[in-house]
């Protein structure tokens, strides 16, 4: 099939790419842009390891055509770190055991980022439901709750002092 030229905006930068129309966003990110942070864990849109933000909303990059995302702003896990340093949620996941094997972690980073953007102080119930799009096989999710609480605390402390 003939390739098409598309322009994809990822993490604030534009990329001109020649891709086949059947290519999935996940494959374009991983193979054409070498952004391998987003992972493939299932083939039936159930695991959430490939989650990215499309215009700020979490979506599964394995279930979208790359060409369909033209004109939209994609944020991947590579776009979560702030100025080359760990974002609070990334640091907290490391410190609190929110990540073990780490394979699901990029997906969680995206859903948690969105969760906290929508609701800076979620209840445990809201966190639980907010995480329910992503499967993790190591942690039983427990230490993620601690990590998220720690990240919220760190953010709240950081805001008045550093800015």
């Amino acid at each position: 099939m003939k390739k098409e030229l598309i322009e994809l905006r990822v993490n604030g930068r534009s990329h001109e790419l020649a891709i086949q129309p059947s290519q999935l966003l996940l494959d374009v990110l991983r193979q054409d842009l070498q952004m391998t942070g987003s992972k493939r864990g299932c083939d039936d849109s159930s695991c959430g390891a490939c989650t990215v933000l499309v215009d700020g909303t979490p979506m599964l990059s394995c279930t979208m055509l790359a060409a369909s995302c033209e004109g939209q702003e994609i944020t991947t896990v590579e776009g979560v770190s702030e100025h080359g340093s760990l974002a609070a949620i990334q640091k907290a996941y490391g410190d609190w055991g929110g990540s073990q094997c780490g394979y699901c972690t990029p997906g969680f980073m995206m859903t948690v980022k969105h969760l906290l953007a929508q609701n800076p102080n979620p209840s445990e119930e809201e966190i639980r439901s907010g995480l329910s799009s992503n499967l993790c096989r190591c942690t039983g999710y427990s230490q993620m709750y601690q990590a998220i609480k720690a990240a919220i605390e760190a953010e709240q402390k950081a805001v008045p002092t550093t800015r």
Partner: protein
Amino acid sequence: MSLPQFRLLRPRTLDEAVGYLAKHTDKLRVLAGGTDLIPSMRQKLFEPEYVLDIRHVVELKGIQPRAGEGVSIGALTSLSTIEHSDFLRRHYPVLPEAAATVASPVLRNMGTLGGNICLDTRCLWYNQSLTWRKGCGFCIKKDGDLCHVAPGGSKCWAVFSGDTPPALLCLNAEVEIAGPSGLRRLPLREFYTGVGDAYRKLRPSELLTRVFLPEASVDYLGVYRKLRVRGSIDYPLAGVAVVLKRSNGHVSDARLAITAVNPAPLLVKGASEMLAGKVIDEALAEAVGDLAAKTAKPLTTSALTPEYRREMIRVFAKRAVLAANN
């Protein structure tokens, strides 16, 4: 796992989309949220020559209340939008409640109301990879001649597994369909055929564009109950929606619909009559449950056993009626 190759059509307007449909008809599949079509294309259940990507047809998005005439919901409105709509929560609560149970939050960001209505029927013998289906000798819905779940018959029993259609049926929803000869409207209850492999009355050149909820269905009490193994991600294994209106403690009007146990979502016949004019109590709710269970024809299309799923239709219908009454 890559997708089969196809040509991608990306209309920006409904007219453009309808034009493509007319031109390519059965060589084409429509892509909205993608959460149904893309996994199925991976499994080579569909290998269309064209994919019509309607994600960016803006006119088909959004919830538009129409004074005195109910509400019109664009087919491309995401299930998340439905779930969080204050208007719908206030006036048609059963719909956002059902929408909130679909799959997972991220899948609801992607999945659309139109997609949930048009959801392909599902079966453990069908929603499998090409290699797997070779191993089972294929099935009547795709490439084979045996229905593995009802081996004696010639009918496909793949199960309709959408969560919102039972709610919409209870609300007497109508759907708008665009095609080469313009728009047509039909009650949702007439949209489904009850046959697993030709489950909906939508011609290849047509597109489901809008859903109308009538003014008459406004402010009904409503409840949706869903059987699933996990608290998220799963398709329903049985589902019951109920709406009712009361006056002076008596039911003035009620409807009950079931999903995930037949090749179509179904309004339970006789439930309205059974409830009308009555005061709801445990015994009445149980009778409605029995009626719903009789309507259910679950087979081994899904996880958990058919008998269990039928029993849950009974229990969930009873509970839904009691819950809606509270």
